[in-house]
């Protein structure tokens, strides 16, 4: 089935999210939709999936103009979508999830679970998914959950499969497996729309690439184009993908975490005996797939967590059991993982956000009195220094783009003297231009002799920045390796394989993971 979008336009108020977009997806083809966050990719797919109604333009299936009233109709027409956040019921089995929404019945309203099981088995075998129809979704790894989503779509006879940022939640190995699955689906005649902003994956898999910027198609690209070319097309100007950074000159290990154990509300040990040190003038990256204890670890450093055992020391002073205010006052700069929930007060002005932590200290306050004029003046300076694009410091921070929001957070955290800088997912959801800026600031802090701890799930970022890399898996540190370690080794370690074994495996089977291997030879190591 050939799918065509012709002149699709979607507006939200005055914002044009999609501006006359044309797109053709043919059977047996992987069509990559490349664009930065906020470029309008997801809006376009939601239009296609019937979740949003286009203001202009039409959708054609095999040349026939079609109109979807909702996802149900889109599914009926053979369009399947795997959302970035899975739409699965955790306490249901795989088979139950697959039949959810189009349950088959037998006799007087009895669920025909066996039919669904059989379906899962058939599809699973055909594409080598290795999915057990009777496993509970909450018990299976994220990568397998994603395959369940794909099975769901295939079980509904999807001819066009939309994958929205599918690799965001996967380990590098799982990503390779997904790419393999996509190849098989393609060979079986499925048309695939692959939405991403990760250049490496695009080049590994795409047959055709359409680049979207600010809601409009800016052009087609070939998978053979270089990453730098793709990036500049995506951003609209020349960008440098490598971080300009000198060899680190580590000083004293002033920050240390020793035997840290964090227990969550349900009694699970989410961080289980973690120890590491960060030296002055060094960037230590905590790599790992999302949800392996990194979030809890950084929250514990800032004093936002209860039930902590072990020790966190900065310049010899214990940070455990101190309040967030005391930790900040001890000289810790902290960029939280999720800037919209933890980093900024969206309805506050940029100026107010810039002093969120310092609002009660001179010169911003004298006694109980808060001094908006001083805050504004200081904000003007910071906005200039950090190149925050806003028409006024009085604008609500929530109205800024993600990149500019992150710059506000960075500006705030770097505006006081620091002894440690902790940044969690510092560039998540940022455009390439902002990533450049954030990375260079992080390196600058390091060069000023501050210990820098970065938590990132993106291997590219880890490799670009880290002087040393600590890999976390299930609350433990699998190993601490030097900055230039290969992707394959890191990928295996992120899946829990020990350092030595990962080294051995990676050397033994250099061809085992095609995309990973290719990327590590061509890829952006600093």
């Amino acid at each position, binding site marked *: 089935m050939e799918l065509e979008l012709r002149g699709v336009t979607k*507006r939200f*108020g*005055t*914002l*044009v999210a999609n*501006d006359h977009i044309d797109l053709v997806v043919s059977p047996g083809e992987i069509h990559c939709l490349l664009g930065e966050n906020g470029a309008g990719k997801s809006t376009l797919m939601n239009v296609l999936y019937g979740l949003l109604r286009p203001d202009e333009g039409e959708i054609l299936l095999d040349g026939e103009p079609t109109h979807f009233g909702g996802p149900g109709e889109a599914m009926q027409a053979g369009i399947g979508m795997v959302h970035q956040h899975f739409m699965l019921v955790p306490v249901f089995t795989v088979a139950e999830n697959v039949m959810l929404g189009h349950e088959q019945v037998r006799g007087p309203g009895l669920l025909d679970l066996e039919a669904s099981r059989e379906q899962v088995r058939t599809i699973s075998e055909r594409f080598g998914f290795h999915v057990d129809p009777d496993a509970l979704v909450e018990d299976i790894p994220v990568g397998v959950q994603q395959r369940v989503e794909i099975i769901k779509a295939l079980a509904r006879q999807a001819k066009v499969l939309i994958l929205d940022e599918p690799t965001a939640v996967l380990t590098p190995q799982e990503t390779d497996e997904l790419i393999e699955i996509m190849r098989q689906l393609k060979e079986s005649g499925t048309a695939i729309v692959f939405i991403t902003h990760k250049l490496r994956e695009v080049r590994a898999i795409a047959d055709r690439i359409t680049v979207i*910027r*600010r*809601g*409009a*198609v*800016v*052009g*087609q*690209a*070939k998978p053979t*184009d270089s990453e730098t*070319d*793709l990036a500049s*097309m995506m951003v*609209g100007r020349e960008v440098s993908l490598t971080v300009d950074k000198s060899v680190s000159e580590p000083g004293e290990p002033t920050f240390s975490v020793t035997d840290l154990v964090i227990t969550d509300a349900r009694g699970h040990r989410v961080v289980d005996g973690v120890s590491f040190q960060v030296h002055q003038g060094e960037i230590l990256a905590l790599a790992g797939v999302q949800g392996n204890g990194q979030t809890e670890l950084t929250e514990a450093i*800032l004093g*936002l967590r209860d039930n902590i055992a072990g020790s966190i020391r900065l310049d010899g002073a214990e940070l455990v059991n101190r*309040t*967030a*205010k005391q*930790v*900040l*006052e001890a000289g810790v700069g*902290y960029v*939280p993982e999720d800037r919209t*929930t*933890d*980093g*900024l*007060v*969206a*309805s*506050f002005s940029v100026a*107010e956000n810039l002093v*969120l*932590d310092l*609002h*009660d200290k001179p010169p911003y*306050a004298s006694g*109980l*009195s*808060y001094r*908006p004029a001083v805050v504004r003046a200081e904000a003007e300076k910071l906005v200039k220094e950090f190149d925050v694009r806003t028409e006024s410091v009085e604008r609500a921070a929530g109205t800024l783009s993600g990149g500019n929001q992150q710059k506000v957070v960075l500006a705030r955290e770097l505006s006081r003297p620091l002894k440690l800088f902790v940044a969690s997912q510092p560039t998540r959801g940022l455009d390439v231009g902002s990533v450049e800026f954030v990375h260079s600031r992080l390196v600058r802090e390091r060069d000023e002799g501050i210990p820098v701890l970065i938590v990132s799930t993106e291997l590219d970022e880890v490799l670009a920045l880290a002087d040393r890399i600590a890999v976390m898996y299930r609350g433990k540190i699998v190993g601490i390796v030097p900055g230039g370690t290969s992707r394959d080794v890191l990928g295996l370690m992120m899946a829990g394989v020990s350092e030595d074994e990962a080294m051995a495996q990676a050397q033994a089977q250099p061809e085992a993971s095609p995309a990973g291997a290719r990327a590590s030879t061509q890829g952006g190591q600093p």
Partner: protein
Amino acid sequence: MTATTERPSPSQGGDADAKPARRGPTVGPAAQIGLSIVLALAVGAVLIVASDEDVRETARYFFSRPGDTLAAAWRSVSGAYAELFQGAVVNFGADSFAQAIRPLTETLVAATPLIAAGLAVALAFRAGLFNIGAEGQIIVAAAVAAYVGFAWDLPVVVHLLVAIAAGALGGALWGGIAGLLKARTGAHEVITTIMLNFVARFGVAFALSTSVFLREGRNDPISPEVAPTATLPLLLGSQFRLHAGLLLSLAAAVFVWWLLSRSTIGFQFRAVGANPDAARTAGISVERSYTGVMLVAGGLAGLAGVSLVLGTEGYLTGGVSAGLGFDAITVALLGRGSPLGTVLAGLLFGGLRAGGVAMQAGTGTPIDLVLVLQALIVLFIAAPPLVRAVFRIRTSGAVGVGQISKGWNG
């Protein structure tokens, strides 16, 4: 790289002019509130017409002489609203100037506790808390202030100041309990404040049955008169009931404005209200803010109770608050959680209360209509699409009832 067709990127706002407006003019928040009031008055008119004897009488021969019905309807509506206005602002038919402006002073008397209590709710809103407990805080404050007023014997001025402070402190403690419970145990403030309302109401009712509070020689629950030394002075002489409580309420409004926009504590309250996670991450103690804001809010509601017993009433009864703490919620919603807005909303509702009495006396339209009007105004403000649809307008900027009342799910 293949053909990069460079297109002018669509500006994020440029298309606004090109696109024809689908619906009429765009209207700001203040006008939205005005239109909500108009709409509420229109619905109120229907109720007046429906409840009017004359109209029903003439409606029986509506099809032979529809003019009669329409005339009667117009008479009843215009009569009721004219009385409402005259009872709230200026009595045009009065013999003397004093009589003419009496309604205005009565409006101010009614508005005095509404403003103070409205501020109590509005301030809590800004910190993300839904303070349903103004009623209880008023009652406790009234009881404490009344006790200090009639039982203690202190010099002039000092007695009044001590009584005011004691009342405000009583309200503050009552509010602070809910704040502390929220901070320490996570108990939802809506639940705890409602429960504390019951405790306050029946606790004071009980106290009024004991010899401590009961007026000598009386069996019904009424306290002794507050001593003259502890009474709020009248502002316009003995002809009018207007007392210095109004100044207290206005001073409270100025204080809340300062607190919210010019103090570090208010900054913390607002940050916690808008995003507790970000506030916590920036080192602000969310727990302390919850307790603190409820202490201050309780104190503000306490001022309402103080105004009632030391000013308007002069003694304590079981029904001293009479649901004022709940009207305060609508006042705060109407005032969008801002101090100035709350003052204006308090004046409007005070006017409706004072005018309602005159309306009932003058035209027989039940005073309950006023409560319906109050409720409808807030209802229309809470549902902007309704107002938009009726007046065919577009709105800019949320009026914000939904936004400031998000404390429900916190």
